[in-house]
């Protein structure tokens, strides 16, 4: 039982990392990025490109140092050229645009790497250790650490830096922020780029801990969304709580019903939460 709970919490770290980008983008520009799952995959495949296609035998997370900024830059471009202009046209065009983006990315990845499942090689990918009678998987512990670290880091940036203030201003009232000299389009681009960066990290964790295909993204989009909804829209600390909750739910669900049904438990949890309390545990009320 303790093992299940520990697994759940550690897994929660991964889900926090995955959801953080989603939560940030939604908080700042009210856009739930339907292509977020694909951004995770791009991060993972990007590292795959560096380590396998280019043949650089480095640790995936190290390769990420090269890959993540490139992805963030691309994401910035996509946001400014495609998504921000669509935000002005109502609620559906950004959805459709992100959807189209997700299709495009899936197709590109399939073209480049086929639909076969792959994973990222790391010396610690399968290793674990034992502490007080409980088994810990190294990659899970790393994910947990990253989850907490990124949440803390994001909060620091949002609260203590100038760009963070700009992000928060744009999030709370974009028009007024613009009148105060904040380049809102630039801020949106940065938020999206940051989201993509964190998605890349999440993708690498998934690639090391499990396996990836070009279409694996959708599952994580839904799980990420479950985290965001549970934790409350726009609440960074809530994302951590939500991540833990989803991780625990999946872990307990796997223990109770079998591993094949673990995902199903999370999907149904999301639907249940949406039905009952779309505002989540910590968030403010939203009608959209």
């Amino acid at each position, binding site marked *: 039982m303790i093992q299940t709970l520990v697994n759940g919490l550690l897994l929660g770290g991964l889900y926090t990392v995955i959801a953080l980008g989603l939560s940030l983008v939604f908080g700042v520009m009210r856009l739930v990025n339907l292509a977020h799952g694909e951004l995770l995959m791009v991060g993972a495949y990007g590292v795959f490109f560096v380590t396998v296609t280019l043949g650089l035998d480095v640790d995936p997370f190290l390769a990420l140092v090269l890959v993540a900024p490139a992805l963030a830059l691309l994401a910035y471009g996509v946001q400014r050229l495609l998504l921000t202009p669509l935000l002005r046209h109502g609620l*559906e065009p950004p959805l*459709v645009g992100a959807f189209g*983006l997700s299709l495009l990315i899936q197709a590109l990845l399939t073209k480049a790497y086929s639909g076969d499942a792959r994973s990222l090689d790391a010396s610690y990918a399968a290793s674990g250790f034992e502490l007080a009678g409980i088994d810990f998987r190294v990659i899970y512990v790393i994910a947990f650490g990253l989850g907490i670290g990124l949440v803390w880091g994001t909060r620091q940036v949002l609260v203590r830096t100038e760009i963070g203030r700009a992000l928060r201003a744009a999030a709370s009232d974009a028009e007024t922020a613009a009148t105060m000299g904040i380049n809102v389009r630039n801020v949106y681009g940065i938020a999206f780029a940051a989201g993509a960066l964190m998605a890349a990290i999440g993708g690498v964790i998934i690639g090391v801990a499990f396996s990836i295909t070009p279409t694996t993204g959708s599952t994580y989009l839904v799980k990420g969304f479950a985290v965001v909804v549970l934790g409350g829209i726009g609440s960074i600390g809530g994302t951590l709580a939500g991540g833990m909750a989803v991780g625990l739910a999946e872990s307990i669900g796997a223990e109770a019903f079998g591993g094949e*049904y673990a995902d199903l438990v999370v999907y149904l949890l999301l639907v249940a939460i949406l039905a009952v309390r779309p505002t989540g545990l910590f968030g403010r009320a939203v009608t959209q």
Partner: protein
Amino acid sequence: MSGGVAAVRRFGWAPLTAAALVAVLTGPSWLDPAQQNTWFTIFTLLALAQAWNLIGGLGGQFSLGNAAFVGAGAYLVGVLLVHTGISWWPAVLLGGLFAAGAAVLVAFPLFRLRGIYFAIGSLAISLAALSWMSNWEFTGATKGLNLPLGEVPLPEELFKAAGVVAILSTLLVYLVLRSRFGLRLMAIRDDEDAATGVGVRGTALKFVAFALSAFVCGITGALMAGQAISIQPSAMFGLPLTTDMIVMTIVGGIGTTAGPVIGVFVVYYLIERQLESDASLSALLTGLLLIVVIRMAPGGIVALLKLGLQQVVDRVRQREVPAP
């Protein structure tokens, strides 16, 4: 005289529909089996696109979950044929009704949601259905079911059925667009708060649209099962189906009758068929097309055609006016 014009306006769709039905029902006599197969696919895609058009276009709810209803219809038919004595056509009808029923059930948690919440909620339902069906031993899990060959009609019959379903679902969209139900539904789509303010009950309307959409998806899924004989969750509950429905409708012209028709032709015939050997290239072009359309011409090809037509009409009118 005016009575006649009014009659044409009310029932002008009848001759075209009748002609289309005749063409489809006599199809096997002037189309060879390979062509019938192609048209079967076109018909099923069109029916599915119109089904999505109902909920996504007219209803304004971006549903990512319609594949679940296709699969529901397909699998119900499979299960009924394998395990009961119910024959093909009643089973198909039951498949549609089952899908509609599932939609009503699913609508309860989803319909207080709007926009992205509904989209991802419906995606979760679709993924949940896929996940469940991939593990359920009763329906063969990932290996799926095989429909008993003796119960399934000939390809020609399926071709005709698919054609009829495609025509009727297009007609359904056409009629809904011009009905009071449709007007109210679109009012909800365009501004739910304002519409509710004048007494339009959004939730009930969306339920109905969703159920209709699911019904068409279920019937189509049943027909697809009949054609495939061997069905698996990945094909019948898979996201590519949902993707196709959405892309074809939006590229063609969301919320219009002709949109899905054009969309199916452009996306399936021009892209997917031509690039059959390179599936990811065609997927790439499709995704790109969707992005270009939503960015440049959100109304789809239909809107572009209307715009073009308008410009032609304007230019003609300009020439009729004598220069000062």
